[in-house]
Structures are given as C-alpha cells and as structure tokens.
C-alpha cells in the first residue's frame, strides 16, 4: 500500500433544497486500500458516493478522484472508476458472456482484450460451462460475484461498491470479500459502503457518517480502541445513536 492519495474530499457538501444531505465532509483515500464508508440509512453515504462518481454535482467544497476534479473532469473520472450499485446491475435477459462484452464495450475496450480477459475471468469464477446461459438462471451470490468482476473488468483505478453484499448468505459474502482482497492486491482501490459491521472489520480504514457528517475515520482497530468497544458493531452503535435523522 502506498500513501498516494487517490481520492480527496475537502468540505464536500450537497444541499437538496434546504436539506444538507452531505455536510462538508473531508477525507482522503489512499491508493490500493479498502476504504469502508459506513453510516445508517439516510446518513448521506450514497449521496457522497454519487458526487465522487460524477453522478451528482456537489453544492460546495472540492474533491478529486484519481487526480481529476469532480467539477471539471467528470468524464475523466468516469473512465478511471468502476461502479457496482445496490441494485443488482447485470442484465437478466442477457447471457453471462453478453453482459461482459457489453460492459467492456461501453468502456471502449478492444475485442482482443475482451476475448482474452473473458476467458480468464470465466475460468476464475468456474463459470466456463455457464458462459452462454442467461444471467437470470444464476443464483444471487453468483450474480453478485459476476457483477463485481464486471465492475472491475476494464481495470479501473478505483471501484465504488454500494452495499454490494445485500441479501446474500454469509458464505457467499466471505467469498465476495476474498474477491475484494484480490482486487485490492492487484492495485485497485476499493471504496465500499456496507451495513454489515463484520465487513467493516475487513476494511483497511473506515469512516462513519452520521447525519451528513463524518464522525470518525480510522482503522477498525484504532476506532475500537479509542471508543473502548469490543467490536465494530459497538463502535457503530455508539456513534450512530447520536443520529437525529433516520430512514432513507
């Protein structure tokens, strides 16, 4: 892990009408780390993430992603990132191969690159014999692993994962996190939001958002120490209990 700052946010704010969804947050993400972005529903995680992905313009403050400015160079940011949304984001009525081809295609990858990498990926996921089956027929856990592979297929510098493991069983979640580790080991920075506190333990550093502000940011062990908590669960409860907002 280097100490290269790949994401920087400085006083980043988003206001909807009179509502401060994100209230001047500042943080850095280092290149190659797994950065956990935690917070209760409605804390402003998704809004903050959307600003970093170029899906939403900040109201004030500044931020850079992969060295590009979110105001001026959203197109360049989009080329450098991968994204996996809360909702499962593959096409159910397309085959596995077609999904991979499509997503690689929209990132403008060459046919040779796509062909070569598809073969490797299918082998890795043990989906070789399933390549021409519709995604609809896969179990949810497989779909999610595939969606993650597709999100990093074009070899982005950063991948944003928005609650990627919602609704899957613990075994699959574990496998999913192994894939995240592999991606991080290959140099991809992982920016992940989650509800599962055991997953927070897997992150290199986590930030916890409460009511649009970042309340804490450190490694899981340092957070537990400073708040005298036995687990991340406890850390989260101690911080999030202060929240005024609730719900989505």
């Amino acid at each position: 892990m280097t100490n290269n700052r790949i994401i920087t946010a400085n006083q980043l704010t988003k206001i909807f009408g009179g509502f401060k969804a994100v209230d001047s947050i500042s943080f850095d993400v280092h290149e190659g780390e797994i950065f956990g972005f935690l917070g209760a529903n409605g804390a402003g995680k998704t809004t903050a993430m959307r600003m970093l992905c170029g899906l939403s313009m900040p109201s004030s403050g500044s931020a850079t992603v992969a060295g590009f400015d979110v105001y001026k160079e959203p197109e360049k940011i989009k080329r450098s990132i991968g994204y996996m949304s809360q909702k499962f984001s593959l096409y159910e009525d397309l085959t596995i191969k077609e999904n991979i081809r499509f997503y690689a295609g929209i990132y403008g990858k060459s046919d040779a690159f796509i062909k070569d990498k598809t073969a490797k990926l299918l082998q890795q996921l043990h989906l070789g014999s399933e390549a021409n089956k519709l995604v609809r027929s896969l179990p949810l856990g497989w779909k999610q692993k595939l969606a993650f592979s597709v999100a990093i297929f074009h070899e982005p510098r950063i991948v944003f994962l928005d609650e990627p493991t919602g609704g899957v069983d613990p075994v699959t979640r574990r496998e999913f996190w192994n894939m995240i580790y592999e991606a991080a080991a290959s140099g991809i920075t992982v920016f992940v939001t989650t509800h599962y506190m055991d997953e927070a333990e897997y992150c290199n550093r986590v930030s916890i958002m409460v009511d649009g502000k970042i309340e804490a940011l450190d490694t899981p062990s340092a957070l537990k120490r400073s708040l005298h908590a036995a687990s991340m669960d406890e850390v989260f409860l101690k911080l999030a209990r202060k929240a005024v907002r609730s719900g989505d």
Partner: protein
Amino acid sequence: MKQFLSFVKKEFYHIRRDKRTLFILLGMPVMQILIFGFALTNEVKNAKIAVLDNSKDASTLALSSQLEASRYFDIAQELHSQADIEKAFRAGKIKLVVVFPQQFDQDLSHFNKSQIQLIADASDPNVATTLTNYATAVIMDYQNRITNERKLPYTIKTEYRMLYNPQLKGAYTFVPGVMAMVLMLVCTLMTAITIVREKETGTMEVMLVSPVRPLKIIVAKAVPYLLLSIINITSILLLSVFVLDVPIRGSLALLVFESILFTITSLALGLLISSATNSQQTAMFISLTGLFLPTVMLSGFMFPIENMPLPLRVISNVVPAKWYYHIASSVMIKGLGLAAVWKETLILTGMTVFLLAVAIRKFKIRLA
C-alpha cells in the same frame, strides 16, 4: 462508435429475448390491418333479403336470380303480401326487402320505365345504406344489360360505378390511421418502457457512471425501435397494396420519409415520458391514456375533426398523429406531393425538434 455499437447490440438482445413482445410488435400491425380491412368495412356479404314479387314475370324473375347470384345477397324468403314485410323484419334475419310492383315487365317494355321498392332495416343505418347501394347497383347492372340487348339509344353506365365497391372507400382512410397508431404505440410505449426498466433494475445508474454520453444511450435505445418501425411500415404498406388493393397514389419515398419523421416524433415522446417517470406501469399508463387515446380520437382517423366542438378542434392541433395522418392520407390516397403537405411536415418537424430538445434536457438535468 464501438461503445455505441455494443449498446445497439445489447438493445437487440433485449428485444430478441422477449419473444412475446417481439411477436406483438410485429404481429400487431398485421392484425390491425386485417381487422380493419376485413371486419370493420361496410362491405356486406351474403346478406339475407326477402323478395315480394307482385308481378312474377320474366324481368322480375331475372332480377331476383341476379340478386341471388351476386355474392352480396342471399334470398332467404319469398313474401306473398304487403303484411309479410313487417313480419319478415320482425323476425330479425331479413335486412332488406325488394318489392316488385304489379306489371313490372309490362311497364318496362311499354313505357321504358318501371319501379322497384327497396325497404331496408335501418336500425343499423350503415348496413342499410350499404345494402340499398348494392341492390341499386345490381338493378342498374340489369337495366344496363337489357338496354344493350334491346338496342335502345340511352346508357346510364357511368352512374353506379361510384356506388359500387364501397369497401375500398373504407380501406382508404384507415391505412394511414393504422400506421399512425402502430408507430405511436411501438415507438412511444416501447422506448419509454425500455428506458424506465433500466431505471428500475439499476442498470441505468451503472451506465451513467460509465464514460458513455447520455445522448448515446438515448440514441442507442431508439435505433432498434426505429428499425422495427420501418419493418412495420413496410408490412402495412405491402398488406394494403397487395391484400386490400389500396394503392399508394403519391410518392412512396415521400410517404416513407414522413413516416420516419413521425417515428422520430414518437420516439422523442417516449423519451420524454421515460424521463418523467420511474416505473414501467406509470410509463405504460401515460403512453396509453395520454397518447394512444388522443391518437385514435383526435387524429381525424376515426372521427372527423371538422365535426368536433371548438375546444377539441384546438386540442387536436397538438396531437402529432393528426398532422401525420393528414400527410399520410394526402400522399397515399390523394396522390399529393410535398408541395401540398409542406406546411404539415414543417409543423411535425417543429414538434419533433421541440420534444427531442426537452427530452434530452430533462434526461441530463436528472443527472445533476
């Protein structure tokens, strides 16, 4: 370009995988043309009629057999008195009664004129009109023949041609109407649904995070439906020319050009609906009630606009289908050229540009 092509390819996969929808999209225009062409015309075949022959001479028998021989009539009953007429109609099966007066043949040969009374069941006025027209035509035909046989110097041949073949008159007006309906339905409804579906499944978000420009996403969505519409226009025109005998009197190129213009208008409308809604149901509801109904009611294809009250006539002006219907029927049926429809074309173009601009703007704003 490569990005764009992968997009278009993906859209085709969606359409191909959903066989039922594809079948409906391609089959619907064929069905509609056939239904309108055969079921909803004023043409009547083998209608049951009755004859009250008070004369029973060579001419009346010949005329009766000629009526019977025509494919329009079937003499189901021979009546014997004036009182039978009422009874026959009451029984419900008889739609028309032909009454020959006494001394029909005598009158005809001595005075060169005679009368026939046609009594129709006008509880269905359209059928009654059609039947009397047909019967008149058959009688005229007979009269014409005996005129030729007896070498008398007058002819009345030109008169009945207009009355004959009223089924073609029906087909003429509905073909452009069906085209407007089908294009509107396929393009608007399907574009709206396909975009909203991606919002529902979350794939739209992934797409927006990718470096693809929103405009490309939109155009790629529209391309397959544009192609599908061209197939539909082709099948409708082929069916009307070869099955329904409706000729294309004007320029085919102009007709196709105007149809593609209208297709783009519909696509733009679909796009606008998709950016205003978030669920497929809402999109479908808006497309059907907000667009399909006005297309049918206010385009002038079902009901003449001139007969509507002023507010409806004013509203009909913002219905794109009205202008397309006017253009298509002028070109196809009246055989007019661009010189006659340039104003309507300009209006339709203006609407298209306006709708596209608003739709794209809305699509982009949603991202901010």
